[in-house]
């Protein structure tokens, strides 16, 4: 691959998450910007006029223009980077029927494990082990790579010159084979060796008698470190106050009565006069247990340094937080930090979106609500190089992950300062996802039979329809016509996608109005563009937008379960980047004709 190709920005489709907090500030900002500019931009979509005004009515920012509600994000603003994500990073909350991004989920730790030995650490002992692996895992103080345990007396002569000294497993110590004379069958002392930078712990006189439980062997020295001692002392000092004050103040909600802060509140003259004030004032002044004397010669030594490598780097220093030494020989191997597995919840409704399996090595999830399985996936199927003032056809492929047919409606800013975008077919359908077709897909390029005539249209290429490039399997590809107006590094445009599908829901009992209503709300909620304060719109109208196709078929199960077909829809914003725009090429004008696409197989490639 050429360097040019590497440097060029890759085309992308990023999805916008309407986190409530970000969104509010965003729409306010766009509103202000618009007021300042007094620009009278036309709204792209006229036909859903009624629908949009309804939304606006319910919005807090009722006076925002329609464009603001549709496009809260400016594709070129650097701010959008923080609110748009690749589809794979997003979650989908079924209960809220909303996209959730990594910023609007709550995390809870379910399991701690060491990333090196993959040993699960029980939550109870995580604290006492200071969030680090308490077994044999250390990281190199120089290069932060994992260290290996090496026996110093294991003879290396048999090893070829290229091989490193053998790494021994704990149980391999006894009795090496006869050909080599071995002075000590135990292999002790052991030391730590870095496979990358060749640092070994003998440099700092650190050796071990046994190859197992190294952390335990080091614990004694670790406990004697000044910072550890000091922390223990601090804890000891305040713990007794916490304990004596806790029972009397647990019921109080006043900030200064927070247990442990009692002493401070009285000492530093806060207003709160409480019954337990006299008792709480007995916090004795704290005296440090350890006094570390700063070496006076350090500054002088550092100024007279000849070799810059004799001073630790910032990374090395920050890895050894306890004393942050400047001298390389003071660096010590550190135990490896633990990693976590986390449950992710929706911040709004607290339902679990991601629930991993408890085991450290398992990659399965008990609950996995990722956006990939709910939202139409948009990929750029074909994007030729863009040139200023030249109309170029871009193909977007929409794939449907749901097992029902989905109707898509697209809206975009038709014209802005950077270019114009035309969507010949802004409304189209995508056939449901079907695993059988996935298998068919493997016979790529060969003609496929329509699968039992269910969606005969689905299998056929519908070149006849203008704007639809291809409709096949569970995806539809459409054509966009893009004309950039200026030369730039990255051409981007926003695209509002509304997808609608019919879902069948179950209603347990007809008189259970609460559930009925909530489901109605749900469908109603999603009918709005989720770009604004859509949560506030949900309660406003409960009747208008639910599907007219509400039909309860009572025939099958006369007793309890009624099914009801409702129309669900969701709008989401995306930013699409198409790469750089080149200047007008001196090539003859016929070059534009070569850019029109002819078919699937026509993609030119080198082989």
């Amino acid at each position, binding site marked *: 691959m050429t360097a040019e190709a590497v440097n060029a920005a*890759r*085309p*992308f489709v990023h999805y916008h998450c309407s986190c409530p907090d970000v969104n509010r500030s965003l729409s306010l900002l766009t509103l202000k910007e618009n007021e300042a500019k007094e620009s009278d931009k036309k709204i792209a979509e006229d036909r859903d006029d009624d629908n949009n005004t309804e939304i606006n009515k319910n919005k807090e920012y009722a006076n925002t223009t329609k464009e603001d509600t549709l496009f809260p994000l400016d594709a070129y603003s650097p701010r959008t980077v923080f609110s748009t994500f690749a589809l*794979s*990073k997003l979650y989908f909350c079924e209960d809220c029927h909303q996209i959730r991004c990594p910023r609007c989920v709550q995390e809870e730790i379910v399991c701690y*494990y060491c*990333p*090196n*030995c*993959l040993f699960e650490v029980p939550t109870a002992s995580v604290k006492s082990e200071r969030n680090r692996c308490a077994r044999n895992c250390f990281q190199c103080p120089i*290069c*932060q*790579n*994992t260290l*290996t345990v090496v026996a110093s007396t294991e*003879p290396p002569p*048999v*090893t*070829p010159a290229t*091989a*490193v000294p*053998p*790494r021994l497993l704990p149980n*391999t110590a006894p009795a*090496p*084979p006869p*050909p*080599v004379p071995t002075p000590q069958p135990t292999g002790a002392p052991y030391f730590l060796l870095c*496979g*990358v930078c060749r640092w070994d712990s003998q440099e700092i006189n650190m050796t071990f008698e046994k190859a197992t439980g190294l952390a335990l062997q080091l614990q004694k020295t670790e406990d004697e470190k000044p910072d550890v001692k000091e922390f223990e002392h601090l804890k000891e000092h305040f713990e007794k106050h916490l304990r004596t004050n806790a029972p009397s103040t647990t019921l109080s909600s006043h900030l200064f009565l927070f247990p442990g802060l009692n002493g401070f509140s009285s000492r530093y003259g806060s207003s709160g006069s409480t019954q337990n004030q006299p008792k709480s004032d007995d916090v004795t002044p704290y005296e440090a247990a350890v006094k570390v004397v700063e070496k006076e010669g350090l500054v002088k030594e550092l100024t007279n340094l000849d070799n810059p490598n004799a001073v630790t780097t910032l990374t090395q220093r920050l890895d050894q937080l306890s004393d942050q030494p400047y001298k390389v020989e003071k660096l010590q191997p550190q135990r490896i930090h633990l*990693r976590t597995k986390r449950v992710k919840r929706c911040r709004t409704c607290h339902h679990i979106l*991601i629930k*991993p399996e408890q085991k*450290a*090595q398992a*990659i399965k*999830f008990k609950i*996995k609500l*990722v956006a*990939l*399985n709910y939202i139409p996936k948009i*990929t*750029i*199927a*074909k*994007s030729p190089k863009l040139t200023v003032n030249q109309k170029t056809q871009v193909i977007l*492929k929409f794939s449907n992950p749901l097992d029902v047919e989905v109707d898509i409606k697209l809206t975009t800013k038709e014209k802005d300062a950077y270019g114009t975008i035309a969507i010949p077919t802004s409304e189209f359908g995508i056939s449901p996802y079907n695993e059988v077709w996935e298998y068919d*897909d*493997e016979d*790529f*390029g060969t003609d496929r039979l329509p699968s039992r005539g269910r969606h005969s249209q689905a299998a056929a290429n519908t070149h006849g329809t203008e704007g639809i490039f291809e409709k096949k399997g569970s995806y539809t590809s459409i054509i966009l016509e893009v004309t950039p107006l200026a030369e730039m590094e990255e051409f981007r445009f926003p695209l509002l996608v509304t997808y609608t599908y019919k879902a069948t829901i179950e209603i347990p009992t007809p008189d259970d109005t609460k559930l009925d209503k909530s489901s109605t709300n749900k469908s109603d909620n999603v009918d709005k563009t989720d770009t604004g304060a859509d949560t506030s719109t949900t309660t406003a109208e409960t009747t208008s937008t639910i599907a007219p196709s509400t039909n309860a078929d009572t025939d099958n199960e006369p007793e309890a379960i009624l099914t009801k077909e409702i129309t669900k829809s969701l709008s989401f914003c995306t930013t699409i980047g198409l790469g750089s725009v080149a200047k007008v090429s001196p090539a003859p004008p016929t070059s534009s004709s070569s850019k029109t696409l002819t078919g699937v*197989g026509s*993609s030119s*490639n080198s*082989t």
Partner: protein
Amino acid sequence: MEPQIVYYARPEYIETDTGNKVSRKSVICGSQNIILGGKTIIQTDCVIRGDLRRTGVGHAVVVAIGRYCLLSRGSIIRPPYKTYKGMFSYYPMKIGDHVTIGEGSIVEAATIGSFVHIGKNCVIGRFAIIKDCCRIEDNTVIPPNTVVPSFSIYEGSPGVCVDELPECVQDLYESQTKDFYTKFQPSN
């Protein structure tokens, strides 16, 4: 960006019953010790050293590669070796399903799990263990004996964990490798 169809010259590749596509321009040593799971593509100039097997033992699997794997141009698969109790020996290597190994990468790992993406020009050190669902970025050097836990992205030299992968990475890599296989087509 949708991947394009990759065409190859039909006479260059051997297609097995299970759908493996192996380039004739690759160097496969000790093929009786190599297992391909099916629908795995081995591209031009790859080297797989199945002949570097354990000393003393008779027939043994040296390199086991799962389904829907891709060994890109110029990648080298070599079983790891070490001297254990004074005996120099090679050890078998196992690669899971849906594994992509980028162009020019050298792999001497002990195990590579499933759903792993290894970028271009990487070096995976001896006895490295790469668990399921991992991503090694381009030009990364994974030192010997390193363990790469699931859902991590490693980058740099020596490779360090820089980020976590999203939860749906399994589906993502599965569809990517399948997509690549279906789009890897003979040109005539």
